[in-house]
């Protein structure tokens, strides 16, 4: 067998181990599933009727944003999982084994996709209950979900890197707030980016989270017909712009994380 196949096999062994943990500590999964439900309901009922979207319903507008924010936050699990393994010395055990040097990270990011698949599923169902609908057909919608998942996967490599450099799980949870909150709020997730002032507006327009949100709304058919066309390239080409970011993030953070893992401590 060549080394790529070994790496895949090792990653599979690691992913399996992580999945066992998801099953054995169901409390984590419970919160993963409850918090998006809470998010959808809170936004739908607290802000749902108070923010006006030209020509459409705020609830429908909102869902794409909540999806994007939730899956980006899901990356925290990747960081926390790795920080926990570091803290408990398990990473050191792996590092002394003759296994692939990428497997712990590939296996981790892969198994964490499960969290996002489940939370998207739950959010979609909750969304349907509060009045969100898919208007563009299932194929486009499926592509929208795939794009959200792929973006989340890329982002989990960022948090993997952070997880390897912070000393503990507590730190990663706080660190991720510092990174993820601005990224998901200074965006078109909850208000149209045109409503934001000056610099924030520019940031929001070029923010990849805006693009993935825009792409999801587009593919779900949640952008009402009367809405003015976006004026900036990233939002006009949201799908393409998102894919570029996915590739760039992975191309930077995967090697960076693997390198960090090799040297850990």
């Amino acid at each position, binding site marked *: 067998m060549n080394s790529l196949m*070994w790496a895949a*096999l*090792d990653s599979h*062994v690691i992913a*399996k*181990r992580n999945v*066992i*943990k998801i099953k*054995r*500590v169901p409390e984590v999964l419970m919160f993963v599933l409850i918090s998006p439900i809470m998010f959808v309901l809170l936004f739908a009922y607290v802000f749902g009727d108070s923010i006006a979207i030209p020509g459409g319903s705020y609830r429908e507008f909102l869902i794409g944003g909540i999806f994007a924010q939730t899956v980006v936050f899901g990356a925290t699990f990747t960081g926390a999982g790795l920080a926990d393994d570091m803290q*408990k*010395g*398990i990473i*050191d*055990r*792996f*590092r*002394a*084994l*003759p*296994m692939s040097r990428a*497997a712990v990270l590939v296996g981790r990011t892969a198994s964490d996709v499960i969290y996002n698949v489940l939370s998207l599923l739950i959010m979609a169902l909750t969304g349907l209950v509060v009045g969100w609908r898919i208007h563009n057909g299932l194929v486009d919608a499926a592509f929208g979900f795939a794009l959200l998942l792929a973006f989340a996967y890329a982002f989990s490599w960022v948090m993997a890197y952070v997880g390897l450099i912070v000393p503990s799980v507590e730190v990663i949870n706080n660190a991720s707030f510092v990174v993820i909150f601005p990224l998901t709020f200074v965006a078109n997730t909850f208000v149209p980016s045109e409503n934001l002032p000056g610099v924030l507006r520019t940031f929001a327009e070029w923010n990849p989270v805006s693009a993935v949100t825009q792409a999801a709304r587009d593919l779900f058919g949640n952008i009402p017909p009367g809405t003015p066309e976006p004026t900036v390239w990233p939002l006009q080409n949201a799908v393409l712009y998102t894919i570029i970011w996915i590739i760039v993030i992975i191309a930077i953070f995967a090697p960076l994380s693997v390198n960090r893992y090799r040297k850990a*401590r």
Partner: protein
Amino acid sequence: MSTIEAKGLVKHYGDVKALDGLDLYVPEGNILGLLGPNGAGKTTAVNILTTLIRPTDGTATVAGADVLKSPGKVRKRIGLSGQFAAVDENLTGYENLDMIGRLYRLGREPARIRARELLDRFDLTDAADRPVKTYSGGMRRRLDLAGAIVAEPPVLFLDEPTTGLDPRSRTEMWGVIRDLVGKGTTLLLTTQYLEEADQLADDIVVIDHGREIAHGTADDLKAMIGGERVEVTVTTVDAIARASEILATFSGGEVQTNERTRKLIAPMSGGSAEFRHVLRDLEDAGITVYDVGMRRPTLDDVFLTLTGDVAESDEVRDAEKVGT
């Protein structure tokens, strides 16, 4: 050529010299005991030899492979059980060993068989399918050790394998380790217990502040530090001087005293007859003793003899600040 060979290992962490020029040689099939107090550099040495960290300076080969140039080869030939049991709490004992077997690339079926075999051998069969969360400290330690030998590596590193175990589990662990090495495994073992090194090791290297301070067989070391000690704790500080004089007549002048703990320690070679004699003399001098006993030499005694200073474990350092 030795199976483990380290030359001039240096590791700096900022200003801390964790290792300061350490040489180690372990011939094939031998056990080296690396003996030292907290912070001596034992774990640092193990981490360098198992490719976990890079030395600031120095070279090392393990089973013929260079630790720095071909770490991948080294990893194929070693097993490591670190200072703190690195087992996955959420997996069962079986799942832990099966995973390690797969990662050593034994193959699916052989990994399974090996996992069951080891659980049997380490007396964990009953707990095999319970999450490790529910294991006692001793069980975790055994599982961790089992993890180190999943692939039957020719070279084994055990970092303080019995620290935190009760005396019974410790004796059991010694049996397990002896068994392993009977099969030709080369072993580097770290410990803070002189007795443990004595029980297991062919060769002992005593280190402190990242440097070797003594090297030899257990018998060599014992010859250096002498045999048993008598330890006397008197009830009043005033009695220390007089008690010290009495002990000196038996030990040939060598007595260690600590005013804070009111404890006196002196080497004594005459066995229980002499011990009774000491008691009688103390009583005749009108000294009331709080506690008295004979004990075998410890790491502290090694340090006292070799460096004229007590081992700087935290406890002793605290004692020093107040007393003596």
